[in-house]
């Protein structure tokens, strides 16, 4: 790819996603008794293959993920992933369970889907609001399995907007990973809208 985003553009992207994720934290705090703080320490655009390696999950690990597909100006799949243990921990902390759980029951799975939905929606909302993109988004789904099961619907030729999410709870910090997987055409459209947005604000600032 010839036109990578500049560091300034990446910074701007990180900034707007942090605003979005802050809204998600607000919604989560209204839902649960715990205080949750969400931050995005890093955003990267990289080939899907490299993004997969960045996840620090090995091939045998069980992963819990929430996914939403999207189409429109650009299309693909958004994934929020946790190691199974972290997912369990997050759910039981947010539900205020005293006893650690060994497996997610159907209802608890659904609560993880809701958490994922809130977070992914915040990201989608950001894209729609700031980048003026027009996309339509599908209902969230839950997937549990090894990394290859999670990435069944994406290929190594795809690209990924990789976002690391940190959940800060009073007692603990839990890391989650978001990947917006798109094909190269979609990615170019996406990057173009980012550039437009950044140009827009720098132009406004200088005039």
């Amino acid at each position, binding site marked *: 790819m010839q036109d990578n985003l500049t560091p300034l553009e990446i910074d701007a992207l990180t900034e707007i996603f942090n605003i979005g994720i802050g809204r998600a934290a607000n919604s989560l705090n209204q839902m649960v008794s715990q205080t949750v703080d969400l931050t995005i320490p890093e955003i990267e655009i990289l080939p899907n293959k490299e993004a997969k390696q960045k996840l620090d999950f090995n091939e045998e690990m069980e992963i819990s993920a929430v996914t939403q597909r999207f189409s429109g100006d650009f299309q693909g799949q958004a994934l929020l992933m946790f190691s199974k243990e972290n997912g369990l921990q997050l759910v039981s902390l947010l539900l205020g369970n005293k006893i650690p759980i060994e497996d997610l029951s159907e*209802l608890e799975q*659904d609560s993880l889907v809701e958490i994922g939905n809130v977070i992914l929606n915040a990201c989608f909302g950001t894209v729609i609001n700031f980048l003026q993109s027009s*996309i339509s988004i599908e209902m969230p789904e839950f997937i549990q399995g090894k990394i290859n099961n999670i990435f069944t619907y994406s290929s190594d030729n795809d690209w990924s907007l990789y976002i690391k999410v940190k959940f800060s709870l009073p007692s603990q910090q839990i890391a989650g990973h978001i990947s917006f997987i798109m094909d190269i055409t979609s990615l170019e459209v996406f990057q173009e809208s980012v550039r437009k947005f950044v140009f827009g604000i720098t132009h406004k600032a200088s005039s």
Partner: protein
Amino acid sequence: MANLSNEILYAALNELSVGIIIIDEQQQVVFFNQWLSDHSGLYLTQQEGKPLANVFPQYLSSRLSTACESALALGLPARLSNTFNPTPLPLYKKNFIGDDKHLVQQQISVKKIAIDSSMPLCQIVIDNVTHMVKKEQTLLKLADENKNQRQKAEAANKSKSQFLANMSHEIRTPINGVLGMLTLLNDTQLSQTQRHFSKLATVSAETLLHLINDILDFSKIEAGKLDIENVAFNLGDCIDESVQTMAIKAQMKDIEVIVDSTSLVNESVIGDPSRLKQITSNLLSNAIKFTDKGEICIKIKTTEIDAKHLKLLVNVSDTGIGIPQQKCSALFDAFTQVDASTTREYGGTGLGLTIVRQLCQLMGGDIDVKSQLGQGSQFIFHIVLEKDKHITPPLKTFNEKPVLVVDPNINNGEMVRRQLQLWGLDAELCNAKATKKSLFNKIENNHFSVILVDAHIDSFLLENLFTSLVKANKSPLDKTQVILLTTMDNDDAKKNTLLTSLSTKKNVHTLTKPIVTKSLHRELTVTFSSENRQAELTHAVKRFESQTLVENENEHVKILLVEDNRINQEVALGLLRKMGYRADVAKNGIHALELLEKSQLSKPYQLVLMDCQMPEMDGYQATVAIRSDDKYQLSKQISIIAMTANTMKGDQEKCLAAGMNDYLAKPINPSLLAEKIAFWLAQ
């Protein structure tokens, strides 16, 4: 699609078993289906066009309304899980409208309906998950109950073991009193019948103490209170000691006890010697109990696990009654013996092997049994020990000298021969039974430097053996040395006279069976140089002389006995009197301090025997006071020996930490008491 009329669509939506609400951009009701009517008690005809917040007041600024807003404005779909939002809308079980006990548990999806032409609409789909919630709650409750039950059972079991441990400990105190009094009673003038009764009472009390000790151990293990020590000790010595204490019983039954430690590589180890002794003694005592003739063989072997650890393998085999194969597995369970009748015939708690197995497991090993009815039994156990950095030097080897071993027991003879070969001796084994003639020929024609003879061979053979020796030893300088292997217990009077007469000869030495490596080596060393033997004899005489000297002086020694229990006072005083000591008695710590302070001016005490648990002031407190308070300046250095029924690990440390010099466990062992008193008076 052309045939699909609105009527059909309405009908289909109304038949669905999920709730559907459709709202417009202003969040006003466009449609809801029959399911929703059934569960809310509302009719579409009356509600159509009303804002949803008016229909359901709960909707106002709820998470559901936020979700609907983002769906309408941005097209973001939302999922509301039951766990975070159990009942967002007032929906009830059919026929129970308005009854809060019958609220429907909901799971909601919100999505924008994408139709290009018209205004945006939002669809709310409500799933009834009441059944699922109930099911999960029941499962959770069951799991909880299960866990509680298990915890309760564990706690009950633990407190039971704790109770047993406490009670056994309490019971030991009076038994100690009984045993002590019986010891004293046996030293008084008794008629034959009285002596017999008193002996029976002693045996019963000893058995009872043994049982209580077993139960105490067992319950301590169950309660997880038994700690394994880690001290440096010599493996060979440890096994030899436990074998020697048990061997007398075996020899009384005329059973041969063979210790084979030829495969023992590392002798210096770190572990718990007293627990190891407990295991071997227990197995030996079982073997002796269940064997009427033949032999008991103990084989020990060490193998390296890694640079730091060793595996000790011990095999105790006997030629006893054996165990039916199907009963072998239950052998290590608590309170089982092979059958009830065996229990009656052979006695025992049935706890012994359970304790043995648990001890093995605590030391990183296990125990196994191989046996067949009538074929004898083999108990094989292993434990893990640490290697000691300080290695004991191996026993010195001898220059190659011809040695003959004459033993009717092939296994024993073979073991001795192998041991001798390990020490560089040219050893030959001769089975005394089969080849008398060749034996004598051999002796006459060879220059054996040493002959080891089992004293159990018949007297005729023994005498002839010596005659052949005389023939072989033509010159007196070149005398063959003979080591007689005798047993501790010998009731054959005729044989005894012969043995006594033989052992007075200069070239005859005796060695008591069972043969353990160290004593065999020592005896051989002595045998190879007769000067050594002379020296040892004089040393023994000297030791004897000095002992008698001390005993006459005993009467002038002032001892203070601090003990609250009347019976225990009597026992201790009686024992001291027997040793020729006199002692004053203090009934608790305060009393003891008074006596000490008073005596300082006239004739101070030289030794204190201190009980630990006493009313008003215990032994620990009293000791601390003696050592630190200036009032007792002159007695500050006095030797204090603790006497206590507390035999838990750590008690000894507690006594020493309080400032006591030594420690004696009750019941008081008279010879140990004498030894300790003599030692501390000499300091």
